[in-house]
């Protein structure tokens, strides 16, 4: 059972961005302003480490989150979507007039039993 997935529209945007920036990654942000949103960076631009966990891979991109934040998110299934917007931070999609967005739902009991552990950074 995967923890994170991506909509077709968001996956198409990833493809477009990859042709411009090369391999990409996601890191889920927390905190104010544009926090609680996924940030998309050229792979390796954002250094992950022992304070992070890898939740899975979407559209060829690793999806990371800080371990402390994951403690509160682990019971929810995440979907990377995209909406019109004016993103901030250094996420690469902002100049497109689009913003990646996380949609969440609770895992069912059956799904929870099938979840694989996340990978420490």
């Amino acid at each position, binding site marked *: 059972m995967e923890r994170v997935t991506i909509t077709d529209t968001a996956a198409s945007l990833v493809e477009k961005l990859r042709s411009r920036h090369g391999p990409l990654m996601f*890191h*889920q*942000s*927390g*905190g*104010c*302003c*544009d*926090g*609680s*949103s996924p*940030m998309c*960076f050229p792979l390796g*631009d*954002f*250094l992950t480490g022992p304070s992070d966990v890898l939740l899975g891979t979407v559209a060829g991109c690793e999806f990371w989150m*800080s371990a*402390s*934040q994951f403690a*509160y*998110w682990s019971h*929810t299934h995440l979907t990377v979507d995209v*909406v*019109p*917007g*004016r*993103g*901030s*931070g*250094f*996420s*690469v999609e*902002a*100049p497109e007039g689009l*913003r990646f*967005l*996380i*949609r*969440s*739902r*609770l895992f069912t009991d059956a799904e929870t039993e099938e979840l694989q552990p996340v990978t420490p950074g």
Partner: protein
Amino acid sequence: MVYAQPGTDGAVASYDSQYENFINGDWVAPEAGEYFDNPSPVNGQVFTRVARSQAVDVDKALDAAHAAAPAWGRTSTTARARVLEQIADRMEANLEKLAVLEAWENGKAVRETLAADLPLAVDHFRYFAAAIRTQEGTSSQIDNDTVAYHFHEPLGVVGQIIPWNFPILMAVWKLAPALAAGNCVVLKPAEQTPASILEVVKLIADLLPPGVLNIVNGFGVEAGKPLASSAKIAKIAFTGETTTGRLIMQYASGNIIPVTLELGGKSPNVFFADVLEQDDEFLDKALEGFTMFALNQGEVCTCPSRALIAESIYDEFIERAVDRVSRIKTGNPLDPATMMGAQASNDQLEKILSYLEIGKAEGADLLIGGERRIEPGLEEGYYVQPTVFRGKNDMRIFQEEIFGPVLAVTTFSDEADALNIANQTLYGLGAGVWTRDQGTAYRMGRGIQAGRVWTNCYHLYPAHAAFGGYKQSGIGRENHKMMLDHYQQTKNMLVSYDPKPMGFF
């Protein structure tokens, strides 16, 4: 009276149709000649376009700042303070215009920009004008013939990246101490709100020597990143979220420069049972304090977005509190009677709506609101109903900064339980404590792991009260003279007045 939309008949102010960068005292077009549209959250319509800068434009601004830095750094504190006072006077004389312009760009209620954002910004320049004139170095007698002198020196050229929730005030929180301390600045406004701060710059441009203040607009990835990672800055200041905060620290590590970061929170607002002991002014104030989650549509880093209520008074307190929330007047942000305006952007609106869904899915009880709000005549604007959920502190709506008018309420059994819940968060920026008992207030205030504990008040931001975070909420303290230290080097001259050799060699 409702203020007219900027640029229309009867309006007190207007925006230009296009904005350039402000570099070396001039308005300079971006090298690539590209611009991005700037929509108003009030009605979703584009009202101006702004320079879309790249690394080359940032570099130009940094070079201008470096050229200006030696002379500005040597300017007397008296002269620098005078410039800051003049900036304050100029802004004050144009306060109503700037308040309307900022409300139109950000979507916030003009009532707040008139009464809070702009008056606080004006006062902030005056505060740091005073602070720099009264700052003293030290001299210490190490022994009879040896003296250690400590001088304050500016860092040189600093970078500042500004958030969109208080486009003018947050810029001023960073600019005033940096300029007072004798630094030159390259500032990048948020791409959601680039224009109102440029209207401030238009007003004050003649007061500063060319190159002392430079504004470069654009997207984070195209302009913010080259600024934060440049070897030409001596410090970077950022307000925003944690992932970008980490990235900025990472870039700073490459250049071994200091950072100050303000990264938000999930602030608890704690109501003890004794608030209900009497039905008086203080109870009324506490109920207002509960409702403060709706200030600035919840787009405040210190939004009191978790209310912790003593379980013995829960039923009566929440009935009165929700009634107070139901009386929040929503509407056109340019109507001075409106208390809560529009969210700052479409993606912000979408994110808040996604959290309303999470809250419902996690089984939180919806006490009021919970939906998008459509304002008649402003159907394309980004509006949300003030919303209150009741749930548990480990739910995601209790742990993540929604940055919208969404309050998560829970109860506590006793003081120890209240403190435990208050501290069960990744963040530590703000907190509120409401009680008639000073002992309770003191113990809670000291026990809560947050940089600011409002005690029997909330959302006051006077200059001279330090503001900054514990835990993942950031590094540094703004809004106080101690911020000068974050923009200064310490020069120690260790002087011997003894003519005799030491005798080592």
